[in-house]
């Protein structure tokens, strides 16, 4: 079941802008995700800013931010292509919901966390200094949350896409005053019409864009795994 659902995941370039998603459905899927997503010491040191269907101005600002990051990144290549390949960010403009994940400092710890601090345990999510050295853990937990939400969306016949190319520096987020901590992930939700894969297939390029093979990613260490794999 998990495999069949996740197999439907495609990076969407164009969502159906006429398709209305009931807000209660999004709310329900987010609640279910919150309920089942684990977090180290139960902190959930992140926040999800959900930008709804009518907030086109915010979406435009975030789209510009992504294109700007692509320009910036490609400046490290001598042949700098600039932002000519920005079709991948169109989904930000035409999605129903845009989710911006940011880090979050915990200002109201639970009783167990308070007890731990008094016992002499150091908990990074409680301070700005701690959170800045905790970004990898926060990102990992955002990955746990986002992929669970993705599964729930796909199960409900909604599509999603992730974007990781955007400016991290808060000075680039001034036009979105609610973004007060480091952004970590952009996720769009809607009813997909055209995927990146479909567009690449049309021009015969999908065969070029493959994953590293399974053997490059997974290694059974110091054991001959073929022993009991028939």
């Amino acid at each position, binding site marked *: *079941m*998990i*495999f069949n659902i996740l*197999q439907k995941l495609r*990076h969407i370039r164009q969502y159906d802008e006429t398709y209305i998603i009931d*807000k209660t459905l999004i709310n329900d899927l987010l609640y*279910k*995700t*919150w*309920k*089942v997503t684990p977090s*180290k010491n*139960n902190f*959930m040191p992140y926040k999800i*800013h*959900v930008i*709804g269907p009518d907030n086109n101005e*915010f979406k435009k600002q975030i789209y510009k931010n992504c294109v700007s990051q692509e320009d910036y990144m*490609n*400046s490290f*290549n*001598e*042949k700098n*292509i600039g932002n000519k390949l920005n079709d991948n960010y169109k989904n930000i403009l035409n999605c129903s919901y845009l989710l911006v994940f940011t880090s979050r400092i915990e200002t109201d710890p*639970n*009783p*167990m966390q308070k*007890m731990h601090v008094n*016992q002499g*345990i*150091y908990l990074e999510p409680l301070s700005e200094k*701690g959170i800045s050295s905790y970004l*990898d853990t926060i*990102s*990992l937990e*955002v*990955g746990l949350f*986002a*992929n*669970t939400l993705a*599964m729930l969306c796909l199960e409900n016949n909604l599509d999603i896409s*992730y974007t990781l190319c955007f400016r991290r520096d808060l000075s680039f987020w001034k036009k979105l005053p*609610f973004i007060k901590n480091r952004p*970590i992930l952009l996720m769009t939700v809607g009813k997909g019409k055209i995927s990146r894969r479909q567009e690449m297939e049309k021009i015969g390029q999908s065969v070029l864009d*493959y*994953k*590293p093979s*399974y053997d*490059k*990613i*997974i*290694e*059974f*260490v*110091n*054991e001959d*795994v073929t*022993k*009991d*794999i028939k």
Partner: protein
Amino acid sequence: MIDTILGKRRHVRDYDANHIPSKYLVDSLLKLAWHVTPSKNNIMPYQVNVFGPENKKEKKIIYKNCVSQEDYINSFNNNNYFENDYDAPGLNPEYANILKAPYVLLFTTRLEKNPNKNVLRNVVKGRHYDALNIDTIPKINDLVSLEVGMFVTALCGLCMENDLDISYTMAFRQERHFWNELVNKKNYEIVEHRPVLTMTIGKATLYRTLDYDDYKPNPERIIKYYD
């Protein structure tokens, strides 16, 4: 349905030594997770190092690394009087699952030396990828962690569907020299760049007890709507 499957997950303290999942099953689940996990530019800048039932020595190294990190991190608390006793006979219960699990997965950062044709073509055109360069790979630590989070969510769901339990550990020493002893059959260091996550798989006999004082922040504090 998905939430019912994932809702079965609980942090494991002890695994059943008599119930060892077959390597065939673990390998199959990893293949499925690999197949369905997305990655930016299809690079998958991480490696999953799987330690099986016979890798007791390696599990001990990982366990010690976790306990040592706990001591290190608590030294930042001025009230610190909580220190692990390395000579004590018992195990630190938070990390005992690493020693008891049939399978321990150590996720590490991976430098892509042989990217796919689409990436190569884009490099020629003038695009830049941090994941391809040893000097820039530390800049994407957060991205690597995020993608590992996506991979393990898929793997967790697949394990739950197959009545296996899992646990995550994120407290361990980051510096490479703490991992020198961990080598593969070719005697190469396994942690070439950075450890990201430890995950254990097996059949649980004991879970961490739920404590009503140890609750999550409520959803309204995590999720904000801008209509």
